[in-house]
């Protein structure tokens, strides 16, 4: 680790003669405007106390619900290949795979999801539903009972046809 660090230091671009330790203008870091320094009084912009000005009651209420959902593991991200943004859904509100599929069809508009359960295979469909389980593996949706699925699903991915066929 230390050897690595000194290697980096040796090749670092600097102002000043080699061997001196003049202050370095690092290109990567954001240049703080002089006014910013005065105003932020040394606090980092990322987490300033009491900013944004949201009532702590409201913050606590959200935090508690988010924590509950995360503990229950039920809020998962859903991505669709080609879609510009992801969605987030609470798996607990659906009773089974059919409702889930219908909801995702609603959310992702005109894209049809087709038959994506393992038993029926993916023939004839343009998309397949896959999910990432607790171990990080990409699995086809529909193989396991619903309850088991909810507890192990960490993330959903709606995959495009060609890639999907490989899983079917």
């Amino acid at each position, binding site marked *: 680790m230390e050897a690595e660090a000194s290697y980096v230091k040796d090749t670092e671009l600097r102002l000043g003669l080699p061997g001196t330790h003049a202050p370095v203008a690092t290109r990567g870091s954001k240049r703080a405007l002089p006014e910013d320094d005065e105003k932020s009084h040394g606090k980092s912009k990322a987490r300033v106390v009491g900013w944004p000005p949201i009532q702590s*009651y409201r913050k606590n209420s959200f935090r508690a619900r988010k924590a509950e959902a995360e503990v229950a593991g039920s809020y998962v991200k859903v991505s669709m290949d080609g879609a510009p943004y992801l969605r987030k859904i609470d798996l607990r509100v659906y009773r089974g795979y059919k409702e889930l599929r219908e909801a995702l069809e609603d959310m992702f508009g005109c894209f049809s999801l087709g038959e994506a359960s393992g038993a029926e295979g993916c023939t004839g469909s343009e998309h397949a539903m896959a999910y990432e389980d607790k171990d990080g593996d990409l699995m086809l949706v529909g193989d396991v009972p619903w309850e088991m699925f909810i507890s192990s699903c960490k993330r959903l991915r709606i995959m495009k046809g060609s890639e999907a066929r490989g899983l079917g």
Partner: protein
Amino acid sequence: MTYFPEEVVEHIFDFVGSHRDRNTVSTVCKAWYQVERLSRRTVFVGNCYAIGPERVMARFPGINSLSVKGKPHFADFNLVPYDWGGFALPWIVAAARLCPGLEELRLKRMVVTDDGLELLARSFPNFKSLVLISCEGFSTDGLAAIATYCRGLRELDLQENEVEDHGCQWLSFFPDSCTSLVSLNFGCLKGEVNGGALERLVARCPNLRSLKLSPAVSVESLNKILARASHLVDLGTGSFAVDHRTDVYHTLMNSFPKFKSLRNLSGFWDASPCCLRAVYPVCTSLTVLNLSYAPAIQGDDLIKIICLCFKLQKLWVLDSIGDKGLAVVASTCKELQELRVFPCDIYGAGTTSVTEEGLLAVSSGCPKLNSLLYFCYQMTNAALITVAKNCPHFTRFRLCILDPGKPDPVTNQPLDEGFGAIVRSCKNIRRLSLSGRLTDQVFLYIGMYAERLEMLSIAFAGDSDKGMIYVLNGCKNLRKLEIRDCPFGDIALLKNVAKYETMRSLWMSSCDVTLGGCKALAAKMPRLNVEIINENEETYEFEENLSDRHKLEKIYVYRTVAGPRNDAPDFVWTL
């Protein structure tokens, strides 16, 4: 007027409703002062430390309604230490002794204890209404005492309080003989709720018009309640989350059509889109809709419900509504007066889905808009100038650009001109919160044009003392000024000291005022309490040794006739 008998003068004063008018009336002459004070029924104390409770009650012995506020507003954002003060007990104790006819008590940002609630419950036989807003320090035991002893209670309204949960039985303490409830709001409670007790309580109160349930109330319970309370005007739904395709869900879907009087809807704590459909039948008569605690509802579902709400006057929503959703608001809600858009992403780290476009749309589509709270990622001067032109009726305008000190992204200019346009156009503006990159220029505009301004909140703004001075010298009606992280120092603080006696309070944190400046202020103005809040444990033990040049982290200055308070904690030093 001097020749009128007192009864006639008193009768005339009956028509003088507002606190301010009555206060003014009482200063005309001694005779009027006497008549006014004896006939006064309602008193509002904006700062609990401005005057002692005994003095209030000695002056107004006939009051039956009292409203008191405690902590400064910035306490909402964790800027005021937990045990700073604002205790309700002295007020309850004094009232118990001097105003036994008390019927209504309203407390905001105060520390209320279970003992205080029990004393309250036992001391006032005619007690009818308790409203607690953003208070803390009590538990469900205190609520049990209220339920037990307040015969004839009409209103129990708990808004945004931190209440310790000691069990769900408090609802069972309402005796069977309690049938007088008109308004019950316990939305802020976190613990379990005794569904059966709640259902029976609702069933025996035929006058119940406002009911706001906590997140713990299940849809099953809600269904039973709704079956018994079809005259409700105002409903907070409880969790509103249930598996669809269950019987409970089906019952819910059929519960709302019969509500002919329902006008306000809120709650929706865990609501999912499928449950939201249940309220579609009542949307067309809604005037108030609060979906700001429902993060699971996405933009498209918000749009579906808003499309139906064409009588809406007040809308609170999360920024997941997006600019697209706000465009729908603009085209549907022509009666809209108040809009609040809160961020979903609490830490404001990323982008939000609303920008100046959403605000522009609403300003042009909703001509009656007069109150705004808007959290967004960016704002432009051009947009603000257009908003000002479209909506000259703003009385409350609070804009929060999440990135502190962010300029107009198109021109890279500060937002001085935009906010300047707002204050120039909106002659009746009473409350203003600023954000984004701002120089002293915006304060020049505010001082010049914001004649009716009463409350101003400033953060990360200004270049020099001149900014604050423009405001203090300009805004004739300024009552509350709260400032954080601005380069205002002693020169600004001391420029117009007489001004502070015309105001309720001044808060300054992370600015450049020094101990010396505050000492000078306190010396010049003995009727102000100049409080220094010093949470830095290393220095507060050595107060006397601090140099006058030491910059103060937090100061709170307020006018008072009660002198320095005797309940201040160690870290508060009143000069």
